């Protein structure tokens, strides 16, 4: 038997996705900073229990920064500000805090899902919706590293030919065009070659009969998602 901490990793990806969607929906009904804070705390506790806290916090750091900007900006200049402590508006602070916490909750839940399921697994699961969808995203996954390399090669080649990025926006935009045009042309040629390869290999996107095979734990996870939604509907305000 696998240790308890690994159980989250054993739940069917479809059941996890449904549950995450229900939880995200429930966040939209939470309208006070206290309920949103409790939600954040519970999410972080779940992540810590499954050994995901450190990578999660790393991924959350840009959102925490953005959240701080949201709070500061609305505290200072929100037009709803009526009551002030020095020059900090209380109404704007409340609005900013709720928005920042909601954003943090949404990102926390989705990042936990993404930490548990690698991108390749998510894309494979998406092909259940339609085989072509999986093919398109699978192709993106395989082209992207090549194109990133292509971008670096093109950038270095153009710099060697005398490209200067410059200080002003229009100089940077000119440099952008010089780098992007060859990348776009090469990627279009690549698209044609890939289409020919799919053709000669007899790619066929026939849809087969699909069956959902969720076990007891998967159903429990979805039921849990519904419970969170019902609780947030009841206590959100």
């Amino acid at each position, binding site marked *: 038997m696998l240790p308890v901490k690994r159980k989250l990793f054993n739940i069917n990806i479809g059941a996890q996705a449904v549950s995450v969607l229900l939880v995200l929906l429930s966040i939209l009904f939470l309208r006070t900073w206290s309920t949103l804070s409790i939600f954040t705390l519970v999410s972080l506790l779940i992540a810590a229990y499954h050994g995901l806290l450190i990578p999660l916090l790393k991924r959350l750091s840009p959102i925490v920064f953005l959240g701080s900007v949201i709070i500061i900006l609305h505290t200072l200049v929100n037009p709803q500000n009526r009551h002030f402590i020095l020059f900090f508006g209380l109404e704007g602070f409340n609005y900013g805090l709720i928005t920042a916490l909601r954003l943090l909750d949404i990102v926390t839940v989705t990042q936990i899902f993404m930490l548990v399921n690698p991108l390749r697994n998510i894309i494979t699961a998406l092909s259940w919706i339609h085989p072509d969808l999986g093919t398109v995203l699978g192709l993106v996954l395989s082209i992207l590293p090549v194109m990133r390399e292509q971008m670096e090669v093109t950038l270095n080649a153009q710099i060697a030919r005398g490209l200067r990025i410059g200080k002003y926006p229009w100089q940077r935009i000119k440099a952008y065009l010089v780098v*992007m045009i060859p990348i776009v042309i090469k990627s279009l040629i690549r698209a044609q070659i890939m289409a020919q390869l799919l053709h000669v290999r007899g790619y066929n996107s026939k849809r087969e009969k699909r069956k959902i095979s969720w076990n007891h734990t998967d159903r429990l996870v979805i039921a849990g998602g519904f419970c969170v939604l019902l609780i947030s509907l009841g206590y959100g305000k």
Partner: protein
Amino acid sequence: MNKKLALTMVSTGIVINIIGGLVATTFKIPIFLDSIGTMLAAVTLGPWLGALTGLLSNVFQGLATDPVSIPFALVNAVIGLVVGFLAKKRGFTDYITPLLAGIILAFVAPIIGTPIAVYLFGGVTGGGVDILYAILLKSGNEIFASAFLARIPANLVDKLLSAYLVMAIIRKLPQNMKGISKGPNVAG
């Protein structure tokens, strides 16, 4: 074969969107430039596949790095639709259609994007646009109006530049790859 080319063109469009955004960030350009692939797919494959390219670009980016980009998939999909329908109606090789596309999208994209941005981020983007947003808020405008007005100048430059870049590329493409961009009288 056409279906396979459509599949690979959609994938390529998504990658161009991602790389376009990445190069813009690398060069510290204060506009997004992440819808070139959507426009290119819309111009060559039509509005619906263009919309799919835009939609999947944000979904992929959301799954790979930044989950908050998923709601903005709607904006990218509408860019595909607008450019696709314009290309279908007028072609995309003249100088007027990219101008029309840029002007329409400079208003349509913020109309769809602003409610999402206000709900999720309180209108804040974490970029240079925030200064203009703060000035508009301070001058007594409502949150939605400030966020909407602050986005228009950046969107206008972004969409015009992307549309003209796509036009320049389309003009250089061989006839068999131009798709619907040749216009209603030439296509087919």
